[in-house]
């Protein structure tokens, strides 16, 4: 992929340079007054420079590109990890089939192993793009698309949706967290567990706020009565790095701000402002922070 890019870059640079030099030369050279413009049609010159040479270069680039095209398709690797990705306006639902794990906006994957992403959308078209990992693939309404990722370097890679999907198209990022296989397995086991019971006190009060308030109608926390499917699954919210699809970091301050009035952070998102008293809000945050 990188080799292909540098090849194209080099050819482009060369072609551009040739044209620029020729144009400048034609424009600036001084011709003796006696020299008349040459009047032949120049058909042969244009045939060679305009048809034959470009055709050779184009065929070359095209042929060189074909293996790369094959490489981004299905690698037919039997040991694939399948992850389901469901696009929403404007966040990503990530689930790991067979493990019961559902999370949002953060895709954990093991290094050194092919990951097969199944891309679907709950509403409008989206597009999955992690620039450092792989090419774009759209999430198209009524279809399932497939994408294969593989990386050997652990790290956090930022990605963003790339097909215009409405008001908050700009704030619909995600993070791909590539981890060594053991670490990934530990993470998956952790995520598969239901939410821990609150240690008591403020956090227990927070759980009551969550279950009795409007939160539960949209959000799910496995292990509690909250089972809404409209917003992201919050079971392990505190383990995630960002809130609201990469919009703000997941800190206490932003979390509180987001709950009380998310519209000031990401105008137009589907979550209405929550008129909670400060005590209730504090309790709720305390509970959410236990969801590791």
């Amino acid at each position, binding site marked *: 992929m990188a080799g292909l890019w540098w090849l194209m870059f080099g050819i482009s640079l060369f072609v551009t340079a040739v*044209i620029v030099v020729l144009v400048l030369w034609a424009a600036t050279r001084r011709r003796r007054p006696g020299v008349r413009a040459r*009047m032949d049609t120049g058909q042969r010159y244009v045939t060679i420079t305009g048809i034959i040479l470009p055709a050779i270069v184009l065929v070359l680039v095209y042929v060189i590109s074909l293996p790369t095209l094959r490489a981004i398709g299905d690698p037919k690797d039997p040991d694939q990890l399948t992850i389901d990705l469901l696009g929403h306006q404007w966040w990503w639902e990530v689930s790991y089939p067979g493990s019961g794990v559902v999370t949002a906006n953060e895709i954990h994957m093991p290094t050194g192993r092919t990951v097969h992403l199944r891309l679907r959308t709950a509403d*409008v078209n989206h*597009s999955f793009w992690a620039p450092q990992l792989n*090419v774009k693939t759209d999430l198209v*309404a009524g279809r399932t698309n497939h994408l294969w990722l593989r990386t050997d370097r652990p790290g956090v890679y930022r990605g963003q949706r790339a097909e215009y999907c409405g008001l908050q198209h700009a704030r619909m990022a995600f993070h791909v967290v590539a981890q060594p296989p053991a670490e990934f397995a530990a993470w998956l086991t952790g995520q598969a567990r239901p939410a821990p019971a609150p240690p008591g006190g403020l956090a227990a009060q927070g759980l009551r706020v969550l279950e009795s308030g409007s939160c539960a109608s949209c959000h799910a926390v496995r292990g509690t009565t909250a089972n809404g499917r409209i917003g992201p699954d919050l079971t392990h919210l505190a383990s995630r790095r960002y809130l609201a699809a990469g919009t703000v970091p997941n800190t206490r301050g932003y979390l509180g701000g987001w709950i009380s009035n998310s519209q000031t952070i990401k105008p137009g998102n589907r979550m209405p402002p929550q008129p909670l008293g400060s005590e209730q809000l504090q309790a709720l945050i305390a509970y959410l922070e236990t969801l590791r």
Partner: protein
Amino acid sequence: MIFLFATPMSFGFGNFLLPLLLGTRDMAFPRLNAFTYWVFTFAGVILFSSLLFGRAPNGGWFAYVPLTGPKYQPGINMDVYSLGLLFLGVSTTSGSINFIATSLKLRAPGMTLNRVPIFVWALVVTAFLLIFALPPLNTANAMLFLDRRFGTRFFQPDAGGDVVLWQHLFWLFGHPDVYIIVLPALGIVSAIIPTFSRRPIMAYPLLVLAMVAVGIISFGVWVHHMFAVGLPQLSLTFFSAASMIVTIPSGIQMFAWVGTMLMGRVVLGVPMMWAMGFLVVFVIGGVTGVMFGIVPFDQQVTDSYFVVAHFHYVLFGGAVFPVIGGVFYWWPKTTGRLTGVRGGQWSFWLVFAGFNLTFFPMHISGLLGMPRRVYTYPGGLDWDLWNLLSSLGAYLLLAGLLVTLGTFAHSLWKGAQAPPDPWGGETLEWATASPPRPYNFPVIPTVHSVHPLWDQGSLDSFAEGARFKDRVLAEGHELLVTSELDAEPEVALEMPEHTPVPFFTAVSLFLAVLGLLLGVYVLAVAAGVVAVLVIGRWLWPRWSRREAGHAPGEKARETAERDAAAEQEAEKEKTEKGAGA
């Protein structure tokens, strides 16, 4: 920008220049032309006034369903888009038909197909593209409107509909539209470069072939806008190959222009500076365009700022530079005034610098992963510097465009009087007064080459033609119809008189569209009926003035025979003269 400026802008140039370049007096259908103009105006009113009411279309220019469907965009906004574009399509289609019919039937005698100016070829190919490319767009928009308003299910997956159908139909229009925008501009460049290189354009037949080829191939590459949709790989390889082939005709044109300059004597007039700026910018847009033909690369950078940079190099560099150059070039012909050279040079350099500063950094921010259509982004992603440069460039670009406007305003205000041919041009428009009289040419010339103003035979034909009744056509509003291929004179036609009928037709259609848009279907139907009646009035058979006076037949044939005899005599005289020389 695309629908109301870039696409129709060629029609402005075409309407004024086509009859002049062809050596005739008007378009083939002048009243249809008026209708085209009014429909364009009213469609523009619909689309732009939606901004005032806060109901502007809000689904992006390619308006992908389901985002634009009834579920996710309630309200009238996307109806403005679909109906407005359908209405605009009426104007564009009738304009295209007019261009083609004019170019086929109204060329000056002797302007055989291989003597037609390249700019005319460009306009004709563009018009043909529109004839075939608008139907998919119109079909898609009609389906969208029906989905939104009357509950059909074309784009609703839960009822068997298919959202990718929209993308196919849209890009089946959308890619040819790129050439609809660029081809007339390339035609302008092909008009400017020979004039300022002091020699005819190089490889004329190849250039014409290239334009026709680009028109045809452009219908086979639409899928390269959809490489990330998840289509089968085999079809991707096909469309990838087609997308690479489409660059070859552009290569032909590029080297023909550069070769013309190299073999000629370049005069650095202001229009020529714009044409040269175009060459440099367009080649950059071209090489990045080739990259988009490579599927894996396309999938990486599509919908990123890289694509924004690419299409601005193609559309701003490829269309706006030549258009401004073309305005400078034909300004003296249109207004009868010369433009200031200093102002023109400043405007060029400011726009050139501002343009590159705005759009070049976008290549880099795109490669760094910045997606397009975002109104904000978090800091710390290495995009900040490039966006800052782009913003600065935008101000510079604005300054340049203001200087350009100022130059034109100054020319109107106190510019020097323009002679008929200020640049030493090669085509027929320079043979008549600046600005041209309403009849364009007092005498219809006979064309002997592709650059009639540079060959003595064509120049002499203005004087020779005065002896023939069918060239002077002085008995009222008349013009000459010639054959399609060889431009042999066929018949003289009388032009229609002034009439408000096209305007009323456009108004009634405007009301019909408004009725549909606002859901007042009674108004829509009533206005539609009125439109039919007005068109009936428009097309009611007329008798020519002369016909009303006396029976034609015999007398017409006598006149014709007399003219034919005179012409034969003139031919003989010329061959004798030629032999003498």
